[in-house]
């Protein structure tokens, strides 16, 4: 594999992890605009533990992820009392505060950034992203995923049917934060450097952008969205300075035509039905 291609695929792997971190709460109807903050927690925590306490990465990365998840849990409980745009803005503010705190933390280099000694190669990153995808696929087969949609669709009725709406929301939020922290920790160890400025609003916002582009109705949406957003600008590289402008136009037009995103439940169901119809036709021919 060429160095260029590997580089692009590594970026893709990070974007996929970030996408699922946004997807989990979004599937329950909560827009998290502060995902970069949780990535920063995972990145700095894992970097700090390996650098200063010589922890092995296999211990430091999960701890970084867990710290991000814990922050999501502790902050999610009060913040998730708000809904809709208020929640989006609360998470937005949260992301800003977290990265600003790291910017001012001299113990991890402050504004100058923080070099990280332990290195994870591309294969490690790919494996991490694959692990996140498998976890998400697993969750999508459970009642948990069912309740995410139920809570988004009609929280009042979900509550009357006995589903703990707050519990599901906080769990989705905290789990999303843990996934973000997990990706952030790998980011730190792959690039061997973290700086607070990287984990800014635009990182959060772009992640949300490609999750919505892919579609939140199915578990495949974020994967497709992340892949498209990573690879399409690379393909547009020929028209270098125009590529982001063209890309933005594409997003605007696409969302106007297909606001539910690229991959939807009806799309998947249609495909499945075509397959089973085909199978039925084949078996009747055989008979």
């Amino acid at each position, binding site marked *: 594999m060429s160095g260029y291609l590997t580089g692009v695929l590594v970026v893709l792997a990070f974007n996929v992890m970030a996408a699922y971190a946004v997807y989990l709460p979004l599937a329950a109807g909560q827009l998290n605009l502060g995902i970069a903050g949780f990535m920063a927690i995972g990145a700095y925590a894992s970097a700090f533990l390996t650098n200063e306490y010589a922890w092995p990465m296999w211990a430091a990365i999960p701890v970084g992820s867990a710290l991000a998840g814990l922050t999501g849990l502790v902050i999610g409980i009060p913040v998730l009392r708000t809904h809709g745009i208020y929640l989006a803005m609360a998470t937005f503010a949260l992301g800003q505060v977290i990265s600003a705190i790291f910017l001012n933390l001299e113990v991890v280099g402050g504004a100058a950034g923080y070099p990280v000694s332990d290195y994870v190669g591309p294969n490690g990153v790919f494996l991490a992203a694959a692990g996140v995808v498998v976890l998400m696929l*697993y*969750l*999508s*087969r*459970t*009642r*948990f995923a*069912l*309740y995410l*949609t*139920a809570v*988004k*669709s*009609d929280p*009042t*009725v*979900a*509550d*009357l*049917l*006995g*589903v*703990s*709406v707050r519990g599901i929301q906080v769990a989705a939020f905290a789990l999303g934060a843990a996934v973000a922290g997990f990706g952030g920790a790998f980011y730190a160890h792959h690039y061997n450097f973290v700086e607070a400025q990287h984990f800014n609003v635009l990182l959060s916002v772009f992640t949300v952008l490609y999750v919505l582009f892919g579609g939140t*109705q199915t578990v495949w949406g974020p994967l497709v969205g992340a892949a498209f957003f990573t690879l399409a600008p690379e393909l547009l590289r020929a028209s270098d300075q125009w590529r982001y402008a063209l890309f933005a136009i594409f997003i605007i037009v696409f969302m106007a035509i297909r606001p539910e995103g690229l991959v939807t*439940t*009806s799309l998947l*169901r249609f495909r499945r039905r075509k397959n089973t119809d085909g199978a039925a036709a084949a078996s009747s021919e055989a008979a």
Partner: protein
Amino acid sequence: MTAALSIQGLTKSFAGVRAIRDLSFEVPKGVTTALIGPNGAGKTTVFNLVSGVYGVDAGTITVNGVDVTHMPSRKRIGTGIARSFQNIRLMAHLTVLENMLVGQHVRNASLGALLTPYRLFPNHRWKVEAREALAESGLEAWADETVGALPYGVRKRIDLVRATLAGASLLMLDEPAAGLNPSETNALREHLKVLMGKGITLLVVEHDMHFVNSICQNVVVLNFGEKIAEGPLSKVRQDQKVREAYIGSEEA
């Protein structure tokens, strides 16, 4: 024997306006009861208070002997009470079968159940049970459809089946026959009779008096949030206050 539902001195105001005042009645186990009254009498408000959508201002609500007056709305289904909704409230992005699975939640509320990958098993017992419940109402053909696009009558019955899947012993049905055509109404009546045969107690808000007459043994009449009469429909009909309450409204 404790009543399925016992309401004592129930009072509720919205922005200073009394919606329910000092309302008391009981629904004995196995006695199908109708809650009737002119529009705006407070029937749906009673349902919302019993299910916990609103908190009460005064009074007590007891379900199967358990005081639920101050119980969080989420926990009340655990005392054996479930409800349907006047303007059908199904999760539009889920399939019919998935709506049924949400209905089963209260009987499968453990962490293990939450994380069981049931979708990997085509014949998981939850799906089988949900399909059987749908089949009893002749709805199995719709099982894999997304709810949003289905016809009104079908969604209405799905809402009812979902309520039954909670395994409740008391079902509150908010205008189950509204908007149904005569054959759908007959199917609904048969369905409710099957439920009654299983020992489920029904409390029904309904405007169709023929329908009420055909299934209910007892009727509670509300007007302006107060109980004005109670008893068998034939007797309540003769009541002077009931007649006055209905004068000028189309249900008379």
